[in-house]
């Protein structure tokens, strides 16, 4: 036991003596997770999102186009500015605007027509609204498209039911329907009743408006027939999502894996030195030499996690809202997995120089697929299924589950089990494949 403890103690002393290693392992993940945490919702989801810069080119100049611009400008998430076509195209290309909406000439007239007949004036196709967009902002494009649909429906319907051009259009449409023998009699009657009703409504509003000024009447246009009540499902009724909980887990996992990788590389370097000869000359078993390295690496990993989550608790209010035992279990299992990962790097690597390159790549892939950078729910479905074979996914999901999701110990059992299995597998392969002799 004395040699084992001495080996572990020596590793810990060497690591803590290496200030650069400590700073990289603790300070860098704190900085990065603070940044990512802020981006992904921050503390209590209070972070205000940046407005989407959008330009509008009004080539129509109608009441409808002006109303549409006013409606869009009222959206909280949009920063709407008027522009000209070429200037807007240039701004989008340079990334200064995410999208530009082109309202073509006669849009108001054609849109009103299309609202009732499904076609533009004189049977022309529906009018087009041009959207110039930055292809690197496809997510924002979907938002813009949704808001534009709502705004167009509201403004056009309002104008059709209550505006001057709408009245003219209703009258014209009524005349067309009445004189059109191609429309079946029953359909003609139904359309005549609908348009006649709209005309009657408009006339009554005119009379009421003249007699009692200030009465609003029907002036809002069509709007969404519902509002949403959104509730973030977290660990408790009043507990809100904390983006830092995920980012601290993700960045912690990443930099602990790098620490594990360093352990492996250090073993490869050690094997080329006189120190390795001295260790091998002592009456120590191979299990003790590798096992002590695994325990010291796991302790360092545990220390890093403890420090990161302590910082996150103090600075960002990240709490373990689920099972504390489950959280500890996930951390311990991940620490052991990291240590075993370090050993397998040493076992499979030949020279430190060659090993460093491919093991950094392997680590980054594990980190990326594990959801350390962005949560795995943004991955395509097939990739989400694939990532269950990546140990980091289990570690991050386990930590998320025990922190902001507030899940019980039973939810930690699977991550703990999978991580321990990875640790065991890596450890066994490392012991079997490690080249003890320096004779190649």
């Amino acid at each position: 036991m004395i040699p084992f403890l001495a080996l572990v103690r020596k590793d810990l002393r060497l690591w803590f003596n290496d200030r650069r290693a400590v700073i990289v392992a603790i300070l860098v993940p704190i900085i990065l997770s603070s940044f990512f945490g802020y981006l992904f919702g921050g503390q209590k989801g209070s972070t205000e999102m940046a407005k989407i810069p959008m330009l509008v080119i009004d080539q129509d100049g109608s009441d409808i186009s002006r109303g549409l611009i006013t409606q869009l400008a009222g959206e909280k998430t949009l920063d709407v500015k008027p522009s000209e076509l070429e200037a807007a195209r240039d701004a989008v290309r340079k990334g200064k605007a995410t999208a530009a909406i082109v309202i073509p000439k006669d849009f108001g007239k054609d849109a009103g027509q299309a609202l009732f007949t499904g076609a533009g004036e004189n049977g022309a196709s529906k009018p087009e609204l041009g959207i110039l967009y930055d292809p690197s902002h496809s997510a924002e494009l979907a938002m813009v498209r949704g808001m534009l649909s709502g705004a167009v429906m509201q403004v056009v319907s309002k104008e059709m039911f209550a505006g001057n051009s709408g009245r003219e259009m209703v009258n014209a449409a009524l005349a067309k329907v009445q004189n059109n023998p191609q429309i079946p009699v029953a359909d003609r009657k139904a359309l005549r009743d609908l348009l006649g009703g709209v005309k009657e409504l408009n006339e009554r509003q005119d009379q009421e408006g003249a007699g009692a000024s200030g009465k609003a009447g029907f002036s809002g246009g069509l709007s969404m027939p519902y509002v949403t009540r959104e509730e973030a499902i977290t660990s408790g009724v009043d507990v809100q999502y904390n983006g830092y909980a995920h980012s601290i887990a993700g960045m912690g996992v990443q930099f602990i894996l790098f620490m594990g990788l360093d352990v492996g590389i250090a073993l490869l370097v050690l094997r080329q030195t006189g120190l390795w000869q001295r260790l091998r000359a002592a009456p120590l078993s191979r299990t003790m030499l590798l096992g002590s390295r695994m325990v010291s690496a796991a302790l360092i990993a545990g220390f890093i996690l403890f420090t990161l989550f302590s910082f996150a608790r103090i600075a960002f209010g990240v709490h373990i809202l689920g099972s504390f035992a489950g959280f500890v279990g996930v951390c311990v299992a991940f620490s052991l997995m990291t240590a075993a990962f370090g050993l397998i790097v040493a076992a499979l690597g030949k020279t430190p120089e060659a090993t460093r390159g491919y093991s950094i790549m392997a680590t980054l892939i594990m980190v990326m697929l594990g959801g350390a950078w962005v949560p795995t729910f943004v991955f395509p479905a097939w990739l989400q299924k694939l990532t269950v074979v990546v140990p980091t996914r289990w570690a991050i999901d386990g930590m998320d589950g025990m922190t902001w999701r507030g899940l019980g110990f039973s939810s930690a059992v699977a991550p703990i089990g999978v991580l321990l299995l990875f640790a065991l597998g890596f450890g066994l392969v490392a012991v079997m494949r490690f080249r003890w002799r320096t004779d190649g």
Partner: protein
Amino acid sequence: MLEVKSISKSYGKLVAVSGVSFRADRGETIGLLGPNGAGKTTTVSIIAGLLSPDSGEVLIEGKQVKSDTDPVKLKIGLVPQDMALYDQLSARDNLTFFAALYSISGAKAKQAITDALDLVALSDRADDKVKTFSGGMKRRLNLAAALLHDPQILLLDEPTVGVDPQSRNAIFDNLEVLKKRGKTLIYTTHYMEEAERLCDRIVIVDHGKVVANDTLQGLHKLLPVTNILAIELDQVDGFKPEQVLALPEVTSAELKQNMLRVGVVDLSRAAPGILNWLSANGHTYRHVSSEQPDLETVFLTLTGRSLRDAK
């Protein structure tokens, strides 16, 4: 104490060690002398249990090292050629760690560390970090680290590489103390002066094979000459050493620049005849001296190559 029996080791087609055998008794110092790449380090690694021989065996007090944890390993102390110390730790912390590898702790470890530091004269720097040490001090601490478990056999793999003459002498003094304490030392080197100064027996290895194994005196007997007459000539134009070789009692004659080296069996009988012949033939000289043949000469005689130039 230590018996190396016909050990061989190859790496693919490269034969590192081929049928090396020697023995070392208690208190004896054996020098493994040979050029770089001769197989010295491989031999030491096999003795220390770091490498398994392809054939042959190593017996320590009649027992083989059979596993990593074999107690027989406690009888061996290894001083690797590469520095085997943690630069970031103090000398005392290094020694505490290496003592613990042999399950030595507490008061026993403290005493062993004090003794080792005293021996290598580093007690006053015990609490300084090794990275602040000079190369010679590190070499001495490297030696101390192998002594903590009081091994009977000390394997020293070129322990003076890269140190200044003063530190080298300090290490020699340390080794002489250990020798007096009855330790068996196996000392690898390619410096003939070191082997001549320290070793009771010298095993000369070349290309993985033992080419000689004897005491210094015994090795000298292998030579065809016992003395060399060195004559610095004034002029060498037209001088032919073969003419000297034809003289009685002369066994070799070599001319390098204006230095003539003549090998003779009996110096007192041969010298007057050689000097008279030179004078009679108009070859004047400015300096005459006699030399004992050294291990370099032995190596040259046995392998046909110079020890330092051999590859």
